[in-house]
């Protein structure tokens, strides 16, 4: 049957056709209001980042240590399976991240879709941008700021599960003993982000 296979393979056409059709599909889907979750990847000094957004705003930032297929499957289940690779909606995010990694941006100015966080975690995460660029706060300080001083452990888990790392700066929250503490992207990434904000340029 290999002769037949060979014959049938001649219908395939080049790979670029599918890429072009895929882009066209994403544009059509966006225009017709069918693109509920758009995603793309971007290279950065902390590795490849997966970005996903709804029409409300940025929904998810994932580091390279998370399996992209698992991240997308989770978003499909929890937000919408109408999910496609599409760049345009994420262009402003990519622009601000580039400025951030170049040391030219201290505050992100992006609409966020925080529906992946529970109300308590969202409240904690909303405190985080108040920690100024280049400085840190302890888990306890954040718990006090969130008007729940007993909730140090819960603050820890709100940081550990932050669906929007970098943009919502959970990397600025450190342990009371001065050590860096855990991070969704791994401790090395956390240290790199803190060093960047201290003005030490990463070797890109």
């Amino acid at each position: 049957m290999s002769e037949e296979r060979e014959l049938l393979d001649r219908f395939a056409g080049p790979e670029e056709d599918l890429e072009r059709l895929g882009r066209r599909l994403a544009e059509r889907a966006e225009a017709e209001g069918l693109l509920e979750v758009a995603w793309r990847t971007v290279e950065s000094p902390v590795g490849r980042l997966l970005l996903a957004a709804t029409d409300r705003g940025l929904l998810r930032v994932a580091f390279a240590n998370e399996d992209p297929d698992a991240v997308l499957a989770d978003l499909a289940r929890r937000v919408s399976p109408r999910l496609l690779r599409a760049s345009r909606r994420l262009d402003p995010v990519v622009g601000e991240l580039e400025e951030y990694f170049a040391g030219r941006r201290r505050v992100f100015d992006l609409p966020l879709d925080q529906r992946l966080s529970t109300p308590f975690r969202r409240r904690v995460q909303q405190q985080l941008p108040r920690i100024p660029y280049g400085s840190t706060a302890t888990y306890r300080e954040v718990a006090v700021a969130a008007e729940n001083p007993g909730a140090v452990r819960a603050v820890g888990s709100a940081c550990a599960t932050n669906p929007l790392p970098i943009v919502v700066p959970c990397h600025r929250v450190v342990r009371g003993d001065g050590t860096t503490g855990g991070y969704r992207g791994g401790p090395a990434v956390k240290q790199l982000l803190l060093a960047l904000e201290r003005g030490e340029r990463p070797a890109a």
Partner: protein
Amino acid sequence: MDQPFEVAVRDHGAVVLRVCRAVLGPGADAEDAWSETFVSALRAWPELDPAADVRAWLVTIAHRRAIDAVRARGRRAVPVAEPPERERGDGARGDGEPELPDEELWSALRSLPDKQRRCVAYHHLAGLPHAEVAALVGGTPEAARRASADGIAALRRAMARAGRSRA
């Protein structure tokens, strides 16, 4: 269906494109049918049964969109229209690189009766069982089996003739 639609495009985009090209020829009509297929599928995706055979479902949609495309061609009514000059296998779409399979294949395909061509597309290219092909094109599964076997044999003969005349 709660899987990312992205996965359906990635896993089945190529098969659907082959089917559209086999039914409609290698031109813009096939690409439009591909786009219409996936837009319709995206619209219906959240309601699709998670146990559904996604490829067969997409091929069914492609079948309908291809019928729409043939209707839209109106009364030209050639089963597979002559491809526009720029999309022939002998030339290229601009950059000198032949981007689509050769003209021999498409002309062999054009020579098949419409039903045989669809049966070849749905069975041999998309892998649907004869019973499902019959549900799409009408008639019995046995007739669909015969049509796809006759179609693929005719294609082979035509390709062999073209190969000999080239040699």
